[in-house]
């Protein structure tokens, strides 16, 4: 994948920099470096081997086998829920579904790094984070079923509503974090966004505000390699985690399919926030295994071998391998989890099917907190109009 064919086609304008006048020897200018795999924080290899990391090990030092099984369980149940939602969409119970398949480690690792008092600003794909926050999975389905635009109380679990307008929630998170700092509270804020979102002006502005006000916020970018049909190369020509530096705070790239690494790096970033060290950018390098949403057809723009290659890095498989190799889990655990998984799927399926359509008058509800004359007038007109049919039906 080249950066842009415009450049590639004109021989006079070759992409990338030429040798000669530019380069890192230039002390007075900053020259970007291309990222390499060594930039990636990894604690568990795709094969499930634990590799030491002098800087981040301490954040998962005391982790117990039970906690490891917990992370595994979270990922499995999230994936199960996600699969159920996908099939509910196929069955017509949902209008749309945005699958997190492949991103379980990024979400569970970061989600489990949080304290209860921390506050989360998700996109529309953070089902795993929602799970960690204790949001009932069925509540996530309301907007995809079309019965509401956000089906939970954000303050119930300190998990904000899903935000569809790309990037906007990063500013809400930053403002919230500015408030946390003003309150002198001991909590942090985390904003999720995607690789595509990194191009939005709002995200850059949130970096500026967070840096200037030294806000306790973690910017957690799940680089799943795609923004619908566009590969990350259409958004940036250097690794995204490097974006933070020019705004005055650190950025780090973590293996987004390694739940331990995601946990550790997010804990580090949250610790920075709590210690008054301000914002951090975490780029979780992961992969969207499925379609963008159930409306999408990825065969139009990407090769299957890419997905296959990423399957070898599956976040769940690698933790399973590790649990088995270390005897931290036995077959009984896996079997039990399988059953729990099925039960979850069943419960979600039933709950969705039982989800009632909203009352028609919901259109007019909560438009304003303090009311608005026009809404009242239109509600009354609507009621009269509806009643006129009732009359006819009654009359016949």
């Amino acid at each position, binding site marked *: 994948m080249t950066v*842009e*064919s*415009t450049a590639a*086609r004109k021989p006079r304008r070759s992409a990338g920099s030429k040798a000669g006048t530019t380069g890192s020897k230039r002390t007075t200018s900053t020259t970007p470096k291309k990222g390499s795999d060594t930039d990636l924080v990894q604690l568990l290899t795709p094969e499930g081997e634990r590799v030491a990391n002098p800087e981040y090990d301490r954040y998962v030092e005391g982790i117990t086998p039970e906690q490891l099984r917990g992370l595994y369980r979270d990922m499995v149940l999230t994936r199960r829920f996600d699969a159920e939602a996908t099939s509910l969409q196929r069955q017509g119970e949902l*209008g*749309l579904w945005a699958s997190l398949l492949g991103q379980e480690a990024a979400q569970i690792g970061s989600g489990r790094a949080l304290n209860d008092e921390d506050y989360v600003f998700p996109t*529309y794909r953070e089902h795993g984070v929602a799970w960690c926050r204790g949001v009932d999975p069925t509540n996530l389905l*309301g*907007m*995809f*079923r*079309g*019965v*509401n*635009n956000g089906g939970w109380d954000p303050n119930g679990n300190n998990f904000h509503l899903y935000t*569809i*307008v*790309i990037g906007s929630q990063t500013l809400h998170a930053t403002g919230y974090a500015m408030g946390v700092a003003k309150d002198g509270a001991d909590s942090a804020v985390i904003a999720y966004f995607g690789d*595509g*979102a990194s*191009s*939005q*002006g*709002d995200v850059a502005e949130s970096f500026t505000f967070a840096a200037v006000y030294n806000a306790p916020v973690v910017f957690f970018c799940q680089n799943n390699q795609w*923004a*619908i*049909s*566009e590969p990350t190369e*259409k*958004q940036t020509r250097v690794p995204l985690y490097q974006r933070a530096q020019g705004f005055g705070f650190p950025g780090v790239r973590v293996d987004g399919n390694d739940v331990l690494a995601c946990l550790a790096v997010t804990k580090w970033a949250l610790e920075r926030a709590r210690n008054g060290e301000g914002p951090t950018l975490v780029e979780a390098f992961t992969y969207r295994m499925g379609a963008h949403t159930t*409306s*999408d057809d990825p065969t*139009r*723009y990407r090769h299957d071998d890419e997905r296959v290659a990423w399957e070898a890095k599956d976040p769940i498989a690698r933790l399973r391998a590790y649990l088995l190799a270390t005897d931290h889990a036995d077959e009984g655990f896996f079997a039990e989890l399988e059953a729990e998984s099925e039960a979850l799927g069943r419960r979600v399926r039933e709950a969705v099917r039982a989800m009632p*359509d*909203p009352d*028609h008058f*919901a*259109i*007019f509800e909560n*438009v304003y907190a303090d009311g*608005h004359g*026009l*809404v009242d007038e*239109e509600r009354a007109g*609507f009621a009269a*109009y509806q009643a*006129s*049919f009732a009359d006819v039906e009654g009359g016949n």
Partner: protein
Amino acid sequence: MAEKMALAKAINESLRKALEADPKVLVMGEDVGKLGGVFRVTDGLQKDFGEDRVIDTPLAESGIVGTAIGLALRGYRPVVEIQFDGFVFPAYDQIVTQLAKMHARSLGKVKLPVVIRIPYGGGIGAVEHHSESPEALFAHVAGLKIVSPSNASDAYWMMQQAIQSDDPVIFFEPKRRYWDKSEVDAEAIPYPLHKARVVREGTDVTLAAYGPMVKVCQEAAVAAQEEGRSLEVLDLRSVSPLDFDSLQASVEKTRRLVVVHEAPVFFGSGAEIAARITERCFYHLEAPVLRVGGYHAPYPPARLEEEYLPGLDRVLDAVDRVLAY
């Protein structure tokens, strides 16, 4: 010559023709390339015209419109896609303060032939921000032209005309009509871009609409006929400028007008039409101009959109009311 095709396909063909005819025409936006757009309106264009002319852009609407302005300053004629109605707002500043005003700012020296395509409106059961009708928010702004076709033939021709226009044009595509087919005659003599068209003649009441609501009005007219009422249906086609002459001519005949659009009624197109037609036809009108449209509320979740959107019954209810005067 004429060929039956879906509205989305007609736009695709129109873009193809423009790309062929003028090397300065560009197509740009999120996912317009390999994917062919989420509605496949640009399907196959990148393959045939290259990444240099059909450009997948970064995910940043202000950037898309802002660089399109720069490209237009360089002599290009960009056709920009905004993926959905609800995502045009990050570009609003560039549209309102730059695109709309640069021709005047330069005392006519600079022209910005930029087309902004926006699939708009509801009725497809989508999630939030995917079903809105923001045309009034652009019509208030001088320097922009706003059009919306209701059928494949108009879509084909109006896109040709929009691209040829030296003014910025916001091209609102009725997304729920993308799959509706009608005859497109690529050899026809095009109808003027900003002129309304009587799509059904009638004598009792005029229904005026554009984009997705034209079909609803036509169906209402058929239903009304069964009740012995003769409704004239006017497809406005252009929201800025609005063709008040055609509206006036129709209202002078029918003496009653109902305006229908999906956008909220409050400060919507119907307000402007009602105000001006009342001024122009004060002594002709037997009843106030009535408006049927969205409520003053966010576009509701999909399971409520049928109640929110103007449908046949609500249009006929307005007809009843306007005839009751």
